[in-house]
């Protein structure tokens, strides 16, 4: 049958099960929008294209599905670059459609023309420029396949205007088979058997899990394995929620702002089982001092992550879920018993680290940001979906909110993109309409995509925003305090809007707490509201995130409160 490019696109999107698109129209995509409104796909009109990408990102993480965006050419496309780079660093499956000028104008410096394929080449898993409508169905199907297979990532498709509005003979695209792309899912069984041998012999084992476990949907298998073999578990920032935070084997987050016991255990362990991680510099600190006493096993689906930063004893390329399932089966086949007695001294040492150096802060007569997060955790019973901005707010959220399930902690880890939290919360709320979604923000970060408040209001999304307001660019100020003799160069954000009035200007509820005894009241009122709420907590201005591993130091050498 004869279809235009835009009509064909709608067909393939339907076949791929797309139910939500985050976007912003423009001339180059007006034909696509014309067809979009004829379908059952929900479109969320944002207020800045960066918001569209972060929202699709939040949606993808909360739902475990590919997030989809639609933007126009030129500035619409360039506005997506930050969001795409963040999704690329965190391996989030996204498909971003950008409009492009008609094919005969490409390369002509046309109105709203930009080489977005060239610009996003280094920060997408792959990207395409569709030159003729006949190619569109195959490319879209391929893009969805690439976005969610192997190590997931964002894929961009640039669609010239004449491709969307020209008719062609449509045939449904065939199943994707790429001879140049064949990720390895099944791990090498011989290597896995070697791993089990090491596990049996280890006196002080530690599991280090990351975002890969969550992307692979393997947290059940991970939890089973850790409990069966009584191995304490730590995760990276991206892995929070992969293992229950309330489990006695939980060590807390590892790394620059990780817990004392997580970092010390890693330094003292004799076996480190790394699953779905990439050994980022925030985690390792000084690489040649990282897990210096341990044999390291590294299971990851991406071969480039293995042996990139840290030498390993047993590298295994494979999918986390498949690998952990196989390990669990090996335990059953060998009839291994829970080594509770053998593990007791190691567990005791870890308890000691936990008891002597717990996460702590001093309560004074100003509101402490850590207290706000603790109260939030308590009042939501740890069940909310939490998105964060970046910096101190992000670190306190990671430290003081304990996650028992995956897909509940949504943060820009690899890129560390301020302004991520609010649009990501919008995406998460669209993905999980019945859940409570809270964005933990700083006063600096929240202003970067504050315009998305209008998006939330337009679609009746009752997102809650908790602003830890210290009138500073907090994390940079902390570094300036600790390493630059308190020379606060350009980090004092003395001028800020009245967030309560700003919330009300958007039609949302605005609340403020200025004293510690107001915190619980404000949180209760805000969380129980059926509307969007912004809660402005005026917190102590010079609070620091502890523990902290100074840049370049081993993670066992932390600055403590």
């Amino acid at each position, binding site marked *: 049958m004869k279809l235009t490019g835009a009509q064909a696109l709608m067909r393939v999107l339907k076949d791929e099960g797309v139910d939500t698109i985050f976007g912003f129209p423009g001339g180059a995509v007006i034909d696509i929008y014309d067809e979009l409104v004829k379908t059952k796909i929900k479109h969320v009109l944002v207020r800045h294209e960066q918001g569209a990408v972060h929202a699709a990102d939040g949606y993808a993480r909360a739902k475990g599905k590919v997030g989809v965006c639609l933007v126009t050419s030129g500035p619409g496309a360039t506005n997506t670059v930050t969001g795409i780079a963040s999704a690329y660093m965190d391996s989030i499956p996204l498909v971003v459609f950008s409009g492009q000028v008609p094919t005969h104008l490409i390369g002509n410096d046309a109105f709203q023309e930009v080489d977005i*394929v*060239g610009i996003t*080449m*280094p920060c997408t898993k792959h990207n395409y420029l569709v030159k003729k409508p006949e190619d569109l169905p195959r490319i879209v199907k391929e893009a969805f396949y*690439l976005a969610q297979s192997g190590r997931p990532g964002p894929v961009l498709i640039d669609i010239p205007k004449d491709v969307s509005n020209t008719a062609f003979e449509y045939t449904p695209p065939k199943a994707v088979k790429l001879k*140049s792309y064949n990720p390895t899912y099944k791990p090498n069984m011989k290597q896995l058997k070697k791993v089990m041998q090491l596990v049996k012999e280890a006196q002080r084992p530690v599991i280090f899990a990351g975002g890969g476990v969550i992307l692979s949907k393997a947290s059940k298998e991970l939890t089973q394995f850790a409990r069966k073999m009584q191995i304490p578990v730590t995760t990276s920032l991206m892995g929070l929620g992969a293992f229950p935070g309330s489990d006695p084997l939980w060590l807390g987050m590892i790394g620059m702002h990780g817990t004392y016991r997580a970092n010390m255990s890693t330094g003292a362990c004799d076996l480190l089982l790394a699953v779905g991680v990439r050994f980022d510099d925030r985690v390792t600190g000084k690489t040649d001092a990282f897990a210096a006493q341990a044999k390291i096993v590294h299971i990851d689906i991406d*071969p*480039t992550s293995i042996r990139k930063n840290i030498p390993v004893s047993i590298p295994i390329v494979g999918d986390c879920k498949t690998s952990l399932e196989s390990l669990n089966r090996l335990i059953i086949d060998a009839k291994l018993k829970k080594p509770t007695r053998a593990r007791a001294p190691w567990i005791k040492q870890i308890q000691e680290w936990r008891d002597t150096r717990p996460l702590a802060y001093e309560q004074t007569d100003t509101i402490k940001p850590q207290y706000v997060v603790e109260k939030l955790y308590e009042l939501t019973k740890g069940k909310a979906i939490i998105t964060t901005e970046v910096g101190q707010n992000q670190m306190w959220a990671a430290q003081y909110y304990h996650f028992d399930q995956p897909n509940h902690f949504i943060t820009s880890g690899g890129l560390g993109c301020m302004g991520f939290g609010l649009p990501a919360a919008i995406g998460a709320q669209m993905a999980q309409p019945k859940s409570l979604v809270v964005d933990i923000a700083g006063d600096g970060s929240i202003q970067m995509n504050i315009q998305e408040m209008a998006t939330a209001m337009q679609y009746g999304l009752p997102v809650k925003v908790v602003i830890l307001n210290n009138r500073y660019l907090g994390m940079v100020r902390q570094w300036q305090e600790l390493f630059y003799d308190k020379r606060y160069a350009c980090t004092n954000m003395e001028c800020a809007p009245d967030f309560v009035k700003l919330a009300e200007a958007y039609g949302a509820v605005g609340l403020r707490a200025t004293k510690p005894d107001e915190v619980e009241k404000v949180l209760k009122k805000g969380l129980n509201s059926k509307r969007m709420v912004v809660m402005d907590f005026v917190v102590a201005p010079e609070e620091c995130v502890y523990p902290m591993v100074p840049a370049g130091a081993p993670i066992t050498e932390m600055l403590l409160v």
Partner: protein
Amino acid sequence: MSKEKHVLTMLVDNQPGVLSRVANLFTGRGYNIESLCVAPTIDPAISRITLVTRADLPALEQIEKQLRKLVNVIKLRDLTGKEAVKRELALICVRAKPEMRAEILRIVDIFRCKVVDVGLEHYIIEVSGNEDKLTALIQLLKPMGIKKIARTGVVALFREPN
């Protein structure tokens, strides 16, 4: 660890932008490309890229893995030190004053290469062979004065075992 020269050969989809992706990978991650040669193979949908890079072994392992990760790269092999035929072609424009012309022609004869252009003051010499041959010829011609040179960079094929 010392940086050594490595010859990589790869088969890639013959599509616009593929060369750009490979080159971008190198610049983006701070690896170097000493030379690069690309052309379609017998299958018009597939091109071969022959690339020379200088790196130590850990960096080389990363380079190879990152290249294989590219969706358009079908196959990759490191031909350094392997049984492979490696050749390069160069066009050398050498200054040819009357008193040097005979000497230059003698060198051309010894190296079994060709003169493909003649002028009052110059010859353009076409030479192909392995890297050592080209280096030796260039060394001999340098004292005469090499005006311009265009090299293709290495192309190579693995010697299949019987």
